Structures are given as C-alpha cells and as structure tokens.
C-alpha cells in the first residue's frame, strides 16, 4: 500500500533562517507531487506541483522553492523565512491530474 511521510511535524524558526521540509512517498512510482500551505482556519493554497523528477511548477510567486531530486521525494525550501511563511504545510500525491489526492500529516511552521 502507499504511504506518504512528511517531516518534521512541527517547526519553529526565526525570521531570516533557511527552511527545508521533506516529503516522501512509498508504494507508488512516478506520482504527481504537490505542496500546499494552509493558513489557520482557511482553505488550501497550492504552492508547487511536480509531474516528474526535476519538473516543478509554481502556482504563486513567493519566498519558497521546491525540488524533486528523486521520483518519490519532494522538498520545500526557503533561503530566508518571512513571518508570512508561517502556516500548515501539506504534501500530497496523486496518480494523475484528475484523480484523488493523498495527503501527508502536515508540518506546522511557525516563524518568529
């Protein structure tokens, strides 16, 4: 069966520090991968998606970047965090663009 992992679960970082969040998927090959951010009590905002290794599409201009160094690994990064980067970050995968998504447990990031 397929499993998606995200870590860390929570993170508190000072403004200006770097960020690296990792997401890995097990049990499937060539998944579509997604990074979302969710503000408190709000919906999800799609940040990045990837249909293959090295292929990243960005949905909104921001202080973040994403990379996919391996088929089932998706990394969200920032060189210098802003206060506005605080939120709940969710990684997800899907078989294709018109199929259901499967979400990881999320990382709660607080930038202080």
């Amino acid at each position, binding site marked *: 069966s397929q499993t998606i992992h995200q870590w860390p679960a929570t993170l508190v970082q000072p403004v200006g520090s770097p960020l690296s969040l990792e997401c890995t998927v097990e049990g499937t090959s060539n998944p579509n991968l*997604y990074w*979302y951010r969710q503000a408190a*009590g*709000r*919906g*999800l905002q*799609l940040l990045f*998606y990837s249909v293959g290794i090295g292929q990243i599409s960005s*949905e909104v201009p921001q202080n973040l970047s994403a990379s996919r160094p391996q088929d089932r690994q998706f990394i969200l990064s920032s060189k210098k965090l802003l206060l506005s980067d605080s939120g*709940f970050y*969710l990684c*997800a995968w*899907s078989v294709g*663009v*018109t*199929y*259901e*998504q*499967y*979400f*990881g*447990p*999320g990382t*709660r990031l607080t930038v202080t």
Partner: protein
Amino acid sequence: SQQGEEDPQALSIQEGENATMNCSYKTSINNLQWYRQNSGRGLVHLILIRSNEREKHSGRLRVTLDTSKKSSSLLITASRAADTASYFCSYGQNFVFGPGTRLSVLP
C-alpha cells in the same frame, strides 16, 4: 481566481441530524472531490464524482453534482460526533480547493 466557495462556512448540528454542505466552482471540470480534515491533520479523500455523474453514495455520504449550476453538495446522514471536521471540495486540473465548511456535531 479559480477558487470556489463552500457554504456554509460553519455548521453546528446535533448528533443524529443530517448535515448538508455546498460547493460552487467556476471552471469546467472532469470531476469534483470532497475531502475531510480533522483539526491539525492532513486531508482525507472522501468521494469523487465525475462530471457525467449526478449523484454518488458512499456509506453515510451522498454527493450530488449539477454541472449546469457549477455546484455540488455533500450530505452526511445520521451524523456522529466523530464527523466533526472541516470539509473541502476540490476540482480542476490544479486541484483548486474551496475554503471549506467547519462542521461541529454536538453529542
């Protein structure tokens, strides 16, 4: 913006009652999906309805889709306290999510 809307934003009902949530969207779709999110957790896929379907059932869940009105509804029958969560609809090639409905089921 492609973002749709769910309504109501929040819903509070008693255990055993039915809960209905609505989703409106703005683009043409191949399918529409509903997800549940318990507080502080990831989203869980509930049901997918294709654009050529009008109604779909899964256990206590019933989803309808009206493509002429660009709207969908999620009905949870005989609600339980464990149904307390936020519910989101999602659609479109880039998985647009609405802002969600926060459902509280009171024991």
